[in-house]
């Protein structure tokens, strides 16, 4: 498939110099996972005509990474359930629009249980209230208190704002779900959580609200929070789910492209932060991958880029970039892998055993 889309060819042209290996993995390994969400197609990213949308990935990140050109998602193509599948290493089958925990243990639980890590050592920054259960599964052997802290930046922002100001200056940051725009599960405890988080991140509520005003999108808000987390708590396992790209559901191609360009820039910003923060520099692996693609133009059952409903090859096949210590730079892996392979690979890198995950650790990493 990649031969057809040109993704492997385009990647190959980028790698003009001999592969090198990053610095040896030191102790105190860390990992940051970024989902290039929600749902981006090859033709707007790595195919020749899409490369103009991802200059940071192409020119800055790919040359330093091992690039998997065929990451296949065989599960349900809804953002929450697909992200949960990425986080458990098992294709979860729950209803995408229900606020339920994943059925299988998450990567955060494996990490904390096996490595005996405290709650503050793993965090998820998620785009909307619909993701609020992503940090901890319903699995009896794990679950209960072993998961990650989940931060929903938009919810924090909404709590930080006086109600009167929510509809104008900040509303562009508060949008929640593009497929069903008004779907926002109601969560309790917003204000108490806000102050607890402000305390944890050493960020005043007013500074947070004031900074948010300068941001253009929900994903920028998420990355801002992720950086705060990295500076203040330096979690060993951080998961950032980006979601601006899902504006595609509105059918506006220009907004979809803008979101891809923004996400590209934000990924580079995260890598830059990793390199500049002493707790992360030289000991952190960054994994960037879309949760899945979007429908092809040719499938009569879909409407092109707008949705991800057909389950066709383009909507199921994406890519993954892995960077950091122990990862060979400038390398392209064309063999097909599955999105459920992420958790076992994280297990290899960080040293835990995801025993219920169905995927396999990628031997090109670690």
């Amino acid at each position: 498939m990649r031969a057809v889309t040109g993704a492997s060819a385009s990647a190959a042209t980028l790698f003009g110099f001999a592969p090198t290996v990053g610095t040896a993995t030191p102790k105190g390994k860390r990992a940051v996972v970024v989902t290039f969400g929600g749902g981006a197609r090859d033709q707007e990213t790595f195919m020749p005509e899409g490369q103009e949308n991802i200059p940071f990935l192409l020119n800055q990140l790919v040359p330093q990474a091992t690039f998997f050109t065929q990451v296949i998602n065989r599960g349900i193509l809804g953002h929450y359930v697909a992200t949960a599948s990425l986080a458990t290493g098992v294709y979860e089958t729950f209803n995408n629009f229900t606020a339920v925990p994943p059925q299988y243990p998450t990567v955060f639980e494996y990490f904390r249980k096996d490595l005996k890590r405290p709650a503050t050592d793993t965090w998820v920054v998620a785009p909307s209230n619909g993701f609020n259960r992503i940090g901890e599964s319903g699995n009896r052997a794990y679950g209960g208190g072993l998961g990650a802290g989940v931060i929903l930046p938009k919810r924090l922002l909404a709590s930080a704002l006086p109600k009167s100001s929510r509809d104008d200056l900040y509303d562009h940051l508060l949008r929640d779900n593009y497929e069903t725009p008004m779907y926002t599960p109601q969560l309790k405890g917003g204000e108490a959580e806000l102050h607890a988080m402000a305390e944890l991140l050493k960020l005043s509520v007013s500074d947070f609200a004031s900074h948010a005003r300068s941001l253009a999108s929900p994903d920028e808000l998420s990355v801002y929070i992720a950086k705060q987390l990295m500076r203040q708590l330096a979690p060993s396992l951080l998961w950032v789910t980006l979601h601006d790209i899902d504006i595609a559901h509105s059918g506006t191609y220009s907004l979809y492209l803008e979101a891809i360009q923004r996400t590209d820039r934000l990924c580079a910003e995260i890598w830059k932060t990793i390199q500049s923060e002493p707790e992360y520099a030289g000991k952190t692996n960054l994994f960037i991958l879309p949760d899945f693609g979007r429908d092809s133009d040719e499938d009569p059952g879909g409407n092109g880029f707008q949705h991800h409903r057909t389950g066709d090859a383009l909507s199921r096949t994406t890519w993954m970039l892995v960077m950091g210590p122990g990862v060979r730079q400038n390398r392209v892996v064309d063999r097909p892998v599955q999105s459920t392979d992420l958790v076992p690979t994280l297990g290899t890198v960080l040293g835990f055993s995801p025993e219920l995950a169905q995927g396999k650790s990628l031997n090109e990493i670690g």
Partner: protein
Amino acid sequence: MLPRQLTAEQFSRYPPQARSIAQAHIALFGQLPLAFLPLLLRELIGYDWKFPAECKELDNQFTYLSPLTPEQLEKEFAAFAKLRLSPDLEQIDWVNAPAQFSEKLSAHLWATHQIDVFRAASVEYIRRVNAAVSSAVLPMRRLGLVAIGRGVKENGRPLFRKLRPEGVYFKDVNPQGGKEALFEVLQRRAKMQPLAFGHWYIDGGESEITADGVTCLSFHSLDALRRTLVAKMRETMQPGGGGPEVLRTLLAQTKPEELGLSGSGEEAVMNRFRVSVLTEGSGTQLFSTTFVQWSAREALRRAQPLTLLTRYAPRQREQSMRELLAGTQTQPELDAAGALIDADMNAYYTWINQQRLPGAEQAGFLVWFEDHKEAVAIGPGLKRGTEDNSAISLREILSQIKT
């Protein structure tokens, strides 16, 4: 309930034509698998408000299936019959609520990793039906006309990148009288081949013409309808009002009368179409570019017009979905440049959808950057992937397409 338990009385709530067809095919229905029959009924239940072309497509399926022996039917639907369904699906009133069944079936197939098998079975079934039923010769070649970029003064972005390989890229079109030329072609063709729902004009702003035999649809003409619908959506999505699934079901069940639309005959058919565009199309309620593209897609898929003119207008600038749905801005700010990018891609989709219809190899297509010098023309006599730098009028290009 399973298909073999069906009786004629169970279709008593169907509209007259749909009921009559259903009751004439009870024996056939009883032999179809549960993974297929409700989907056929989902189409049949709306038969009385379908466009002539889609009625014919449904009739074709009955023509294809009716003569088959039980053994042949078993073979025909073997792939559907092999799908593992949950007992819950049998409990749904799939005769009267086939759309709800379809939603649940879809969720089940995704959850049980059977969606790919289902898709393949569906594609193969439709291929066999189409191969078995000879398609009628079109009374005239099909023609698609698209005008994009209204309101854009300057554009630095290359246009028509996806369509250029399919035809001739004209770089020095005289924009003078271009719009009028498009309207004239549409009206002339409607007069030459008067056909119910055979010639369409869809505009992202206000309709600029009305003409006998031309089905007109515009974004602004549905303003009131859009507002009513968005209010309904807002109500449903309030805390306690339901969730996205409730919303989807509610929208699917919305009838034109509930939104203040009335009429009979062709007007009733169009009312159903208007409501379906706004309830089934994501973003159509908010963005005029999405409205035009989705309407064109549905018109082509369902009505299969001989002529389709779509004309894009600036869409409103991005606001948060919440803000858009709340309608807090009375005079939305417009984004003509963004609309141009949207429409450029949408024109490609309209061409793809046109090419899915019978007579594709003879069909003509024109996309023009309105009031500017660029256009692409596609048709049997036009050399693919070429450029034409000569000064030319839109009328001359239209004559090259042989409209």
